């Protein structure tokens, strides 16, 4: 049985087709405009950033050569001996790596405490007054906009070289970043328990403790863990400015062309970061849906 496909009258079809063409043309024009803007921006920023593709092409062999030289000589005959030689300073590096993790831990913890204290003042639904809210928000914004390593540069001079400067720098930046996220979590809570408690005559602190905290605790913990993960990466480079951790050792290795040391330390950093990523990911999944994981 043949099916008749209904066909529009020619005039109507033409009007539709024209409208379609116009719409497509308008879209295409917009896309071209955006592309043109991007191309112009690329040229401007390439000028500003002194991009020299020829240097890159000429020296890209160096990169391969550099990577090649960082690969240690490992023979099957003397496998363990070669590994031991490659990781000749293993205990020292492990100690520094542990120090890096501790810097990240303490920085995250101190930053999270500050963020916790400030986030209720910065949130739109629980702030006690408009001015305290604006002050808290601006302060957190300042803390997170100045990069942690800039704080570290200043703190190294104020507090002296060493991990303490790194911890303080990380914790200030963490306070800013977490404070914003915490405040967002607080803004998304269900306000009914808050209303219930204030109707029963609870004080502001009591409301926070019994109505807000149970709702926000998993979210806070999850964000804090995510920040810890980021801070481990951050603590790894604190040593570049003398603020403790394994960064200093890496900088020395790369500046003095100790090629195999570079690869050894880099591999240790990568392994640590990935392990911590996987660990915190597990805990975060458990926090977010407690029933899901048994």
């Amino acid at each position, binding site marked *: 049985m043949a099916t008749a496909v209904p066909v529009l009258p020619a005039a109507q079809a033409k009007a539709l087709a024209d409208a379609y063409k116009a719409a497509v043309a308008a879209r295409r024009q917009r896309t071209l405009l955006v592309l043109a803007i991007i191309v112009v921006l*690329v040229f401007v920023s390439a000028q*500003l950033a002194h991009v020299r593709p020829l*240097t890159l092409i000429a020296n890209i062999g160096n990169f391969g050569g550099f990577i090649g030289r960082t690969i240690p000589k490992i023979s099957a005959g003397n496998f363990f001996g070669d590994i031991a030689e490659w990781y000749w300073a293993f205990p020292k590096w492990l100690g520094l790596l542990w120090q890096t993790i501790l810097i990240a831990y*303490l920085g995250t913890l101190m930053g999270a405490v500050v963020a916790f204290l400030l986030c209720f003042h910065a949130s739109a639904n629980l702030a006690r007054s408009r001015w305290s809210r604006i002050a808290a928000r601006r302060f957190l914004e300042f803390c997170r*906009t100045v990069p942690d390593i800039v704080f570290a540069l200043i703190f190294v*001079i104020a507090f002296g070289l060493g991990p303490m400067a790194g911890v303080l720098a990380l914790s200030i930046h963490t306070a800013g970043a977490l404070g914003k996220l915490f405040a967002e979590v607080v803004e998304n809570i269900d306000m009914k328990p808050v209303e219930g408690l204030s109707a029963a005559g609870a004080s502001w602190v009591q409301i926070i403790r019994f109505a807000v905290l149970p709702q926000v605790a998993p979210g806070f913990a999850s964000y804090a863990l995510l920040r810890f993960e980021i801070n481990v*990466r951050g603590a790894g*480079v604190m040593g570049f400015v003398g603020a403790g951790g394994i960064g200093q050792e890496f900088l020395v290795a*790369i500046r003095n062309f100790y090629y195999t040391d570079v690869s050894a330390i880099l591999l240790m950093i990568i392994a640590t970061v990935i392990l911590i990523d996987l660990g915190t990911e597990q805990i975060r999944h458990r926090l977010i849906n407690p029933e899901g994981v048994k």
Partner: protein
Amino acid sequence: MSGVPAISQSGRGRLADAALADLDALKQRHGRHFGGSPRRRLAAIGIPALIVFGAFYAMIELNFSLQRILGGLHRLGQFAVLMIPPEPQGRFVAFSIALGETLGIAFLGTLIAACLAFPIAFLAARNVIPNIFVHFAVRRTFDVIRSVDTLIWALLWITVVGLGPFAGVLAIACADFGALGKLFSEAIEATDGKSREGVTAAGGNKLEQVRFGLVPEVLPVIASQVLYFIESNTRSATIIGIVGAGGVGAYLTELIRVLELKQVAFLILMILVTVAIIDFISTRLRLAIIGKAKVV
């Protein structure tokens, strides 16, 4: 309304007073709402105790001392005084050029990263490449690249292209390649697949499925992520000069080392203003892309 005041002498509600007076009986009747399970209680005490213990251990291990903290705070106070008033002391033009360089690094680095990550992210998406080995391998590659900090990438690239902003561009491109690749592949996996089915039903091959079924769906998400990264890279690019890879970082390091704090304060203010402007533009564009607001 009854004439009895809702708030009693104690300042608590009447209901609360009545409940407090009857607390013992309440506890007896609804015992399970008062005591938690022993496991929960153990966790509630044990985990904070562990965290605090860890903090003390870390402080001892990292040589924290009250004396150093107080001395440092004293010096920080002195620095704060020395920072006022922030003034460029004749280096405004130099700072502006360096900031322009920073913006260029951030923009170009992110764009290169996005262009490289976009095609490869499809390989890491489970719904495009069903082969578990391919997408597992690509994902782990992203993870490894991502776990190396931008500053470390900068050091590595400096050995190749020499000191200067170009090394910074390449460093940001590398570090973001990993991060954007991961985000892109997640965005691709989050698509619902209906439009792809439609393209398949109309006789489209694999490539056409991706081009007409997937790309239009993920493009807005990807564009807004790229904008967000440009924004956050403006911040990263300010510090990349610390290792000699261009931008304002070099000035920042040098001026802090020689304690030209008035200039440091001015430079930091300039950075804050620039970052705020970029934030503003990119937020507007992002909202426009995901269709919540109009540009202009």
